[in-house]
């Protein structure tokens, strides 16, 4: 009955006077439009970043230099990371936050619709600045995404442009976070208490606080780089009384919470999808909220584990090792809760669920390799090797990217009113899952055997695993084209989806709104029990 009411509402919006065509998107303040733009932006960046990764893998197919100059190779590794982190994963999560948060808490829109528009549109000049660096004298930044001085000081104008691009993306993230926090704390429908919010809202609330706390730290660090480069300061130059190690401390004080920014919203997504396909409520809702909070707090005191090889004192190494190991406890609680949600459920395995199960297995493997790296002595032999590359791709690809992919399949019927092709979705999952492991599992072996990361060429004993890894990478890239095809054909010609496409899904967007959701929703708050 509620659904029918919402339907009727869609027809009487003559007060909108929204411009049509492209201007609609330039001027829109509607959370769904802005969410859509974020998602397409992120999807585009994902393919550009992926193409860079394939160029890297092509060069590493065999020992020797075949395709890329070493300097350009370094630029590719640097920009691949920046694009994937700041261009693909973070905007994709903000896109889902825009779409889902107002619907899940029963609000009409985000708290600051105009700022919402602005926070999306400054991403475009940021992306242009970042890609333009490939065409300026000196090329793109080639210091690795961590931008360590003094190496980054040697770069050309491309480094300055990247710094400005990061500033813009940081400002965008901060605005998005302010918007999300304000919306979640002020615009909840009557009866929607904090502890009734879907977990996606909770994880985003915590992520938004992380962003507000750490983005200014990154901004500070890269501004100091800028003044070191051009205005004669010596923050990171020992000859002038500075210290290159200080940059690492500041960078990773941002950088470690950042990795949780990249994964916590995915935790939220998985926490919505697994109960839906297990047809029973999420196990241990409250403990999930507390675990997320603990992870966020711990993330501020573990940054030193990125720097075990700078030569910090034993006390520092011990502190950062213990703190890092501690993160395994709340993360473990989350994994156990998800599995307990499946326990005694009534499981079906549609594409979103497959991606979530893949997420559970592969993310946990990444978590274990993280535990191995937390052990200082072992880290000494693995730091800056391919083991680290394997580790963070295991947590970020099946973690962040599969979480997002699951969300795309899960919500496409709701957003577009059309159902995706289930067979293609399953092909996408299985090819991705196999190709991902073929790509990244051998990189553990490479790292253990001592192959450093960020090198365009390698000794002969690393040849076999590198060749296998490259083959896997191209298969992985191909499987994403299936994804793109599936999304596009769904939007153009998918079969009509049901209002409650997934019978086990029980948050407001499924129970109170039709598919596709109308342009304006919950102009009057829903009635909650």
């Amino acid at each position: 009955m509620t659904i029918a009411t919402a339907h009727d509402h869609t027809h009487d919006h003559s007060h909108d006077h929204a411009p049509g065509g492209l201007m609609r998107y330039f001027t829109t303040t509607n959370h769904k439009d802005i969410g859509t733009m974020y998602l397409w932006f992120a999807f585009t960046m994902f393919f550009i970043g992926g193409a860079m990764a394939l160029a890297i893998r092509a060069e590493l197919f065999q020992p020797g230099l075949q395709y890329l100059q070493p300097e350009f190779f370094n630029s590719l590794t640097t920009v691949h990371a920046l694009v994937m982190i700041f261009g693909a994963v973070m905007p994709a999560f903000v896109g889902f936050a825009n779409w889902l948060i107002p619907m899940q808490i029963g609000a009409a829109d985000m708290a600051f619709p105009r700022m919402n528009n602005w926070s999306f549109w400054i991403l475009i000049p940021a992306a242009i600045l970042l890609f333009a660096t490939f065409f300026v004298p000196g090329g793109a930044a080639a210091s690795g995404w961590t931008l360590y001085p003094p190496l980054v000081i040697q770069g050309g104008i491309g480094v300055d442009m990247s710094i400005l691009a990061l500033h813009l993306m940081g400002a965008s993230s901060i605005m998005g976070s302010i918007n999300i926090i304000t919306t979640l704390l002020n615009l909840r429908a009557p009866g929607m208490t904090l502890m009734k919010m879907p977990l996606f809202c909770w994880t985003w609330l915590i992520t938004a606080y992380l962003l507000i706390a750490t983005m200014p730290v990154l901004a500070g660090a890269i501004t100091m780089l800028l003044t070191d480069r051009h205005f004669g300061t010596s923050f990171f130059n020992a000859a002038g009384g500075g210290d290159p190690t200080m940059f690492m401390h500041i960078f990773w004080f941002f950088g470690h919470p950042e990795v949780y920014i990249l994964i916590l919203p995915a935790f939220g997504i998985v926490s919505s999808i697994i109960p839906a396909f297990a047809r029973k409520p999420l196990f241990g809702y409250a403990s999930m909220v507390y675990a997320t909070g603990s992870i966020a707090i711990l993330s501020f005191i573990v940054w030193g584990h990125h720097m075990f090889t700078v030569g910090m004192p034993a006390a520092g190494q011990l502190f950062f090792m213990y703190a890092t190991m501690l993160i395994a406890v709340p993360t473990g609680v989350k994994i156990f809760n998800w599995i307990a949600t499946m326990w005694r459920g009534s499981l079906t395995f549609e594409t979103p669920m497959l991606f979530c199960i893949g997420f559970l297995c592969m993310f946990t493997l990444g978590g274990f390799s993280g535990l191995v790296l937390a052990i200082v002595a072992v880290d000494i032999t693995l730091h800056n090797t391919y083991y680290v590359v394997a580790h963070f791709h295991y947590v970020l690809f099946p973690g962040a990217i599969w979480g997002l992919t699951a969300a795309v399949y899960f919500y496409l019927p709701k957003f577009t009113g059309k159902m995706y092709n289930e067979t293609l979705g399953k092909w996408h999952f299985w090819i991705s899952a196999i190709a991902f492991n073929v790509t990244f599992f051998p990189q553990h072996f490479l790292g253990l055997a001592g192959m450093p990361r960020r090198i365009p060429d390698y000794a002969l004993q690393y040849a076999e695993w590198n060749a296998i890894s490259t083959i896997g990478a191209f298969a992985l890239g191909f499987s994403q084209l299936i994804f793109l095809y599936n999304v596009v054909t769904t939007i153009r010609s998918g079969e009509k989806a049901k209002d409650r496409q997934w019978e086990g899904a029980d948050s407001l967007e499924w129970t109170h709104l039709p598919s596709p959701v109308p342009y304006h929703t919950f102009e009057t708050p829903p009635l909650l029990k």
Partner: protein
Amino acid sequence: MQKKNDFFRRLAAGAVNLVSVACLSMISFRVLASYDVNIPQPASPIAEQIYGLHMYILWVCATIFVVVFGFMFYSIFKFRKSNGAKPDVNFHESTLIEIIWTIIPFVILIAMAVPATKTILDMKDTSSPDMTVKVTGFQWGWRYDYSAEDFGFYSNLTTPWSQIGQPGTGPLEKQGDDYLLEVDHPLVVPVSKRIRLLVTSNDVIHGWYVPQLGINQYGIPGFIKDVWFKADRTGTYKGQCSQICGKLHGYMPITVVVKSEAEYAKWLVESKTKWSTKVSVSAAPAVSTPAEEDNKVFTMVDAREKGEKLYAANCVACHQPNGKGMPPAFPSLAGSKIVLGPSDQQINIVLNGKPGTAMQSFARLSNSEIAALITFTKNSFGNSVGKVIQPADIKAARK
């Protein structure tokens, strides 16, 4: 149809399980000899501890993985809707279970942390070394200074560029067994002695990384950090720079040769005369040539011949075989104003480098080598200055 789907699902889920277990076990068993899957054989007590710690944690993690995901796969097979499973919607909260699965991981972590702590304390104890070597990274090679013995030397990659190749053409020659891991002068130390390394850098951050000795230490410009090792047995141990340091980061290997005490003593005597730093007066790194080399007078043919070889070893990576470089990061030497102009400007850049660019100081080359190199660039790639630079010119410029 339903049945067929079901079979497919079971098969696929089974395959995932199998692959993960197979891969995990491959880490620990050296199944395929040519496919390295583990940390290389340790050669020092610390590396030995690291190896043991890694195996211990690996097995703990593998066991947890099998148990935890055993539950998950049991659910996947047992509680599927197609088997007629009904959801138990009341099973969604249990404080007792939450407490249990918070405490158990905590206890396991403590069991991991105790041996890990011991290794850290051993690793950081750099006291009472038998000898000390200063390690300096630079773009792109290493320098080893035996300060107590007043000598030091550079260690550079010796793999020829024809084996590495060029983008577009690829390698022109078959790669040797030690491809990218071979150096001209390795670090040499005696066996079974506590060696302390003081690690630093001249330009950007480098990483001195030799896994078999259990060492990975950043060299940070302006700071000196110390690490130690004691090699158990004689042999040659290889490593590479571990921290990205610019264009040729992949091309600055490390080789450590551990000799018996007698052989080390012999090497020490030879090296002291060969690489003495006692007479060094300038701030620039020591020059490794005897005085008579400085008095040599080059002919154009001699200088160009010698210069061509030095160019291939030191300059070609950036300035390219045709001298055209890769502007703007690596400027062209062909037709360059500096190369064609007065020689003191070019000598100055070669000796001191150009701050803020990748052009490093080549002061480590001898006077005659720099003279030959500059003569070569001034009279190649279409440049024809016609002038021969002499070692005496370089000697004069050093002061």
